């Protein structure tokens, strides 16, 4: 789903620590769709460690080919246009890691995800992080940080938001925030229930577990 540049945006050091976190949130043996699965790092964890019935959707052809070559069931497709072809409740958990901000229509993507499965795991970079705010406030330039490493003119991240912006959208879509784990300096921290002003200021990125409510 994300181009190499964009996936680099989600890097903390060399390791996507959000992937380990997410893998541990998936129930063993469950049906999982990983949207924007890149070269299959997370999907491989899910299949090998969690024995999940994992499937992937990936925009870049090179990513897809790499996944299939390592034996992962992945198809080429676009989160913005191809989720509509998946059946209602085809999966137990639908994952979108570091990809929402790169989609054309994040709201529709989340809505489609919640149709495909009752449980969503979404990880996003936090545009409300103090360093981001300071960068813009003090330098008057678009922020470039660990979690957002590309220049404004070449980043694939076209729909950035803060953690609070994100939970607002979840509310609007009837998605219940069950869990929020914030990530800062490579360290994970469980937020009480959903992020507050403090987390919105201090977290570099966050992993959300969402559950579909009654529509």
């Amino acid at each position, binding site marked *: 789903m994300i181009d190499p540049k964009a996936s680099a945006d989600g890097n903390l050091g060399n390791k996507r620590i959000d992937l380990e976190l997410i893998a541990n949130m998936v129930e063993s043996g469950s049906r999982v769709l990983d949207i924007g699965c890149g070269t299959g790092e997370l999907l491989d964890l899910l299949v090998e460690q969690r024995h999940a*019935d994992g*499937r992937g959707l990936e925009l870049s*052809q090179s990513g*897809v*080919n790499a*996944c*299939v*070559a*390592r*034996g*992962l*069931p*992945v*198809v*080429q*497709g676009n989160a913005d246009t*191809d989720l509509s*072809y*998946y*059946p209602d409740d*085809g999966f137990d958990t639908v994952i979108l890691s570091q990809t929402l901000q790169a989609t054309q229509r994040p709201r529709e993507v989340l809505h489609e995800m919640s149709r495909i499965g009752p449980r969503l795991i979404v990880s996003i970079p936090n545009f409300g992080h103090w360093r981001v705010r300071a960068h813009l406030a003090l330098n008057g330039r678009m922020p470039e940080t660990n979690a957002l490493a590309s220049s404004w003119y070449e980043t694939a991240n076209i729909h950035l938001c803060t953690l609070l912006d994100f939970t607002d959208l979840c509310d609007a879509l009837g998605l219940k925030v069950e869990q929020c784990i914030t990530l800062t300096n490579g360290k994970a921290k469980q937020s009480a229930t959903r992020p507050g002003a403090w987390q919105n200021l201090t977290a570099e990125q966050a992993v959300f577990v969402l559950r579909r409510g009654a529509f």
Partner: protein
Amino acid sequence: MGNTDQTKDSEKNLQGIASVDLKNVGLRLDNGEVLDDVTLSYRTFGQLNKDKSNVVLICHALTLDQHAAGDNPLTGKPGWWSSLVGPGLPIDTDKFFVICQNVIGGCAGSTGPTSMKPDGSGVYGIDFPVLTIADMVRAQNLLLDHLDIPDLFCVIGGSMGGMQTLQWAAAHGDRVFSAIPIATAARHSSQNIAFHEVGRQAVLADPDFHAGAYHQHDARPRKGLAVARMAAHITYLSETALQRKFGRNLQDREAVTYGFEADFQIESYLRHQGMSFVERFDANSYLYITRAMDYFDIAADHGGSLAEAFKGTSTRFCVVSFSSDWLFPTSESVSLVRALNAAGANVSFVEIESDKGHDAFLLNEPEMYTTLNGFLRAAARDRGLS
């Protein structure tokens, strides 16, 4: 081509080149007719394991045959998929028991227009019943029954072989663990039917066709069939590949001759393709098999819904297309993949970057190699084969 009798325990049936005459099998065809006796010519590679769980069925394309690997006994040339089928190759004959059967309607040994009629009144010719892809697959099911093989670890094929692969999954899914349709579609497009019609009309217009009874006149519609092949051959290549290979190069001459000789290399090449094809293929078979492809439309058999055809399938799929294939373009594979997703199927889909057109599936494409290798390795692991 050694004929063996139909005793099931004959070791010979499971090895190498074989042909079996099945009597009174009552093969019911889509057109309503029944073929009681059918001959099925096939070839096997590797060894059947004890559980009979390692069988790979290779389905061949329009003008190919059962000689996917090894040497073709008629031409002496290596089999058409030698780069993929063999010890240590993606379709690993050290691991899998591979079967490739000449389709019915073909002309490489299986029952077809060149076969004798059951009443002994001569060859079928144009009296052979019109076939469908489903009929070909039914015949392959008969072969499996005869070989006492319960199910297939994998069905794989390109082009028309891909159609058979999809038909297997849609109609006999309980016998298919995994399916790899390559450079194919779930239906023959209008443009594809159009090209086939041009080819058939060329055959029909040849005075040597004799309404399909050319055998009785000691003749063959060579010119018509050659033209059909020339037209078809263009559809197998991409414009880029043609331009790269031939450009506007002249054939053994310094300047154009202001006549209708083969001035250009591409003309000479196509003429050669046409002329060599008629030596190895029967014109009636060409009519029948192209017709079977034209009639292919899986969705139509399921109320217009392709997803319905695969609903509840437990077969895992690996769909492969090639970027420069305009005969079976990637868009056809995308439609198929969307339908498979809607059906909740386990599906992988890879489009391979290649400028070689439809023919790419027969050529040495490293990325196809790694794709098949990865998919088959994972499938074999899940099937308990490795």
